[in-house]
């Protein structure tokens, strides 16, 4: 077994440990945003990785390369975060789940709109209000200076890459 192979295996073990740790922490830590839980676990395990590798290198008197382990660990962290993001608040996958749970596995579009899409829309508004990007008054909703900053930043990035995001998917 070469030192590079030891490094690869260490990276794989740390990626699996990260996946298990995140899944457990998400069940118990409810006060932190889930993305922060992913990030914190990645930072803690990412800091432990070189320390553990150094101990193994000293114990077996071999020069173990750091980067194969780091690459596999980083790959695992990104893949796990991607899997989480895909199912966390996806409206389309939520509709698919509602279809799966419905009797005879079919629902009307009106029912999806009323019982699923509109509550999700309202949920996002609550998040924007909680984040201080939007204010809710008796006369409706208005953007705050903080919200304006976020929009202008987004528009600048969109201009740099010459894209315009309307939030609508184009499937045709």
């Amino acid at each position, binding site marked *: 077994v070469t030192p590079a192979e030891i490094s690869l295996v260490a990276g794989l073990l740390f990626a699996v440990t990260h996946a298990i740790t995140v899944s457990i922490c998400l069940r118990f830590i409810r006060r932190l945003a889930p993305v922060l839980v992913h990030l914190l676990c990645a930072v803690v395990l990412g800091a432990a990785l070189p320390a553990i590798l150094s101990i193994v290198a000293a114990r077996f008197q071999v020069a173990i390369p750091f980067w194969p382990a780091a690459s596999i660990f980083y790959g695992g962290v990104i893949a796990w975060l991607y899997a989480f993001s895909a199912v966390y608040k996806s409206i389309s996958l939520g509709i698919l789940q509602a279809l799966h749970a419905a009797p005879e596995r079919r629902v009307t*579009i009106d029912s999806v709109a009323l019982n699923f899409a509109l509550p999700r829309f309202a949920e996002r508004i609550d998040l924007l209000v909680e984040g201080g990007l939007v204010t809710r008054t008796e006369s409706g909703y208005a953007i705050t200076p903080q919200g304006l900053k976020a929009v202008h930043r987004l528009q600048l990035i969109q201009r740099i890459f010459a894209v315009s995001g309307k939030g609508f998917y184009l499937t045709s």
Partner: protein
Amino acid sequence: MIWLPSSPIMSAIVASLSLPLFLFLVAHCPWRPKSPMRHFLSAAGLACSLMVALLLANWVPEWPDLLAALVLLAASLLAGYTLWSLILWGFALAMLNVLEQRHRVDSIEGWCTAYAGDGGIDAFTLNRCSLLLAAGFARLPSSRELAITPRGLLVARLVNAIRWIFGLDRS
């Protein structure tokens, strides 16, 4: 411990860092793809080509380094794609964008109409359903009814399993 990255991993790091530059160059070239997905794929293709060129120029035939380099580039492309889709299709950011243009909306329904057009929540729902229809996860047995397909059933079970792993069913 060896801290210096080997040449395949260095190639992957350079290719990963070049992705925003390629996204910018593709955006401002005369043959810019109209679809944002093709835009990203073109830039990702250029980043992969750069990595292949760098690998061929500094070939070190050691498979662990090569595997690690490939995983590193794939992870960077995945992270880049996540940010790209957030810029383009980020739901909350798009809602905020609409509010900035309208200055004020009087209700959730009003905001939804401003976001999705005259069809309001109906148009928004149909847009999200169209993704399921295009992927073959659902079908429309009648014009106002949505039914799951066998493929959709498999994906729904997979989604349920992933949600269970992350403890999302309890929230």
